[in-house]
């Protein structure tokens, strides 16, 4: 079986290099989790461009909604005898979960033949390798997280973007006094709280500490972890955070901001897709998560998305041709233009591409100043710990004085999960 795969791979590489590209033929199946209108339209555009380039390939393109894709579909794809040939997925631990079980195809040859090592920064290269150093993933785009806010409300109250924690609290107080919900928050899905915990921990204890924590090396009962919650509690106890967050999906909470009831929101840049396009330029802006301890190195979050080929894929040559195309400068520019996602390739001229989108420079600047970039709580730690951890954070929001018992429970869970 292994041999066969290699044979196919060699054949694929040979065809890529030796023959004219348009000679490729046969089927190619691509399953994507990009189910929202904008990303889906982009996906279709990319597929069409690829079809034009390789008219001999019969391409089948399927879309599954995001949640279903990652919670259910991907399992059956990878286990089936006839999986799709190319799949969307996430860099880092999520990818490693598959590569460590030999479920992802080695695409080192694709990396080499496209010279991606020259244009993809080292950090992203590391995210794309399995434990033995082979490339199994193609990262294409990422986005930043930040505190988004209503520019017009800030202007009306004469507020400035807070840089430090104290300024952040002061701004929150003024907003609250003026009758606004200072910070929108959502916990119906628990992941937004993963973001809060990530940032607070990185600002209080530094990103290296946070990395060790998500790797399961530090107990949740460590006093340094508890300190994180004293800062979080300041927001909860002063009612700066939206109350009852578990009643709101993240879109519900974003709507509070769109309606002008809430002023700030810790979110990924995809909030822009939810915000009315004609109002975003005048109303929506963001700032870096405030600094708590200036002595601590700065960590940021930039979840990275990309593609991989399942180990059992049948149409390897075509899949690799498609991967080469997906990783090309051409597609990276298209993605940047259409979706506003940051390209992983550093030879894409972001300055000219995003000329009319000044906020992108701001986002890039935030990431540039970071000492360490994390993926996200639910991508950095193992799935079960992520679920239990984020449930614990949600519980903290409604029972802030129970912090000791919450952390003790998380620690019991951590010991159990990481000993397995």
């Amino acid at each position, binding site marked *: 079986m292994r041999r066969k795969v290699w044979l196919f791979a060699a054949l694929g590489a040979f065809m890529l290099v030796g023959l004219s590209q348009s000679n490729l033929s046969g089927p190619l199946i691509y399953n994507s989790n990009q189910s929202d209108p904008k990303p889906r339209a982009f996906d279709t555009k990319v597929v069409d461009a690829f079809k034009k380039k390789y008219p001999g390939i019969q391409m089948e393109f399927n879309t599954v909604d995001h949640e279903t894709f990652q919670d259910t*579909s991907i399992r059956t794809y990878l286990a*089936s*005898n006839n999986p799709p040939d190319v799949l969307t997925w996430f860099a880092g631990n999520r990818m490693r979960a598959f590569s460590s079980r030999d479920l992802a195809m080695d695409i080192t040859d694709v990396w080499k033949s496209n010279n991606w090592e020259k244009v993809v920064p080292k950090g992203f290269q590391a995210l794309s390798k399995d434990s033995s150093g082979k490339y199994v993933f193609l990262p294409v785009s990422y986005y930043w997280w930040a505190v988004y806010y209503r520019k017009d409300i800030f202007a009306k109250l004469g507020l400035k973007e807070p840089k430090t924690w104290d300024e952040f609290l002061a701004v929150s107080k003024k907003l609250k006094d003026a009758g606004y919900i200072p910070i929108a928050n959502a916990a119906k899905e628990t992941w937004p709280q993963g973001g809060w915990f990530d940032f607070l921990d990185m600002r209080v204890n530094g990103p290296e500490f946070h990395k060790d924590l998500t790797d399961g090396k530090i107990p949740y009962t460590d006093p340094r972890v508890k300190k994180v919650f004293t800062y979080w509690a300041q927001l909860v106890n002063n009612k700066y955070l939206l109350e009852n967050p578990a009643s709101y999906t993240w879109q519900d909470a974003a709507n509070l901001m769109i309606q002008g009831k809430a002023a700030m929101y810790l979110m990924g840049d995809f909030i822009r*897709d939810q915000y009315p396009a004609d109002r975003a330029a005048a109303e929506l802006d963001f700032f870096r998560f405030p600094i708590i301890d200036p002595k601590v190195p700065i960590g940021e979050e930039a979840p990275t998305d990309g593609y991989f080929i399942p180990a059992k894929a049948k149409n390897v040559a075509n899949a690799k041709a498609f991967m080469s195309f997906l990783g090309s400068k051409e597609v990276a520019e298209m993605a940047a233009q259409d979706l506003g996602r940051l390209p992983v390739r550093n030879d894409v001229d972001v300055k000219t591409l995003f000329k009319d989108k000044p906020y992108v420079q701001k986002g890039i600047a935030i990431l540039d100043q970071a000492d360490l970039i994390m993926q996200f709580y639910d991508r950095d730690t193992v799935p079960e710990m992520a679920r239990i951890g984020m449930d614990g954070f949600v519980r903290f929001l409604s029972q802030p004085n129970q912090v000791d018992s919450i952390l003790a429970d998380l620690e019991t869970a951590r010991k159990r999960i990481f000993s397995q």
Partner: protein
Amino acid sequence: MSATATAQPQLRVRKVRKGPNPWVLGVVWVFALLWLIPFVGAIITSFRTFDDLNTRGFWSIPQELTLNNFVRAWNQAGVSRYLLNSFEITLPALAIAILFSSMCAYGLVRFRFRLSTPIYLMFVAGLMLPFQVLLLPVFFLANKLHIYDTLWALILFHSAFQLAFCTFVLRNFMKTIPFSLFESALIDGANEWIIFRRIALPLLLPGLAALATLEFTWIFNDYLWAIVLLQSDQLKPITTGLANLRGQYISDWPLMVAGSLIATVPTLIVFFALQRYFIDGLTVGATKG
């Protein structure tokens, strides 16, 4: 018993009697209207514009009504193709489940044999099974049989899984048919298949109709199994198409409700076509074994 099981007019006779206390009836009406609120909400929402809904809220009086959501849902969700797939899955699965379960029920009731109770128990146990348990094992089975990502996987699984409930209900219906009917047909020279076909099935008709309504709804509304057993868009049923409307980034409620209502129409049609049997006939057998 067969006479009361199949005859309808009994209810009409009761109408002559004086009705219930008007106060009680009033309470029933209030609750009936309360029960309909979610439907009214859904229907009104499906005719609203996104902005109208966002600025005024779900339960406000709409300013303008539009059919646009239905048009968009139809186009965006690829409803027409998905709908066809749904029928291609539901109808064969329904036919197999109903045919096989009535055969099973006939076999269990007509013949006395030692395994009869264990087999019945096996069906009842299956009826009580939380089906999420089976997701991965069934997937592996379909994969092994090389029917993963074909409609056959869904058709065969649905019909097998629904056999449990159908056999359970039909066996109890079948019990209400007097045994002597079968015996006298046998003496007249009919074989078992003819008895099943000509005597048992016609007598079961109301029960079968009721069962078909329920089963149609359940199989048609399935979402989970389609995810696990299919990966190609061109095979997927309407429920998964709708799931793609449920965006990660945008919650366009009017669009989603319109799509959901389109998806509910077939089940509603089946329900209204067969509701006479359903409301009046279900479990007549099951309740009097």
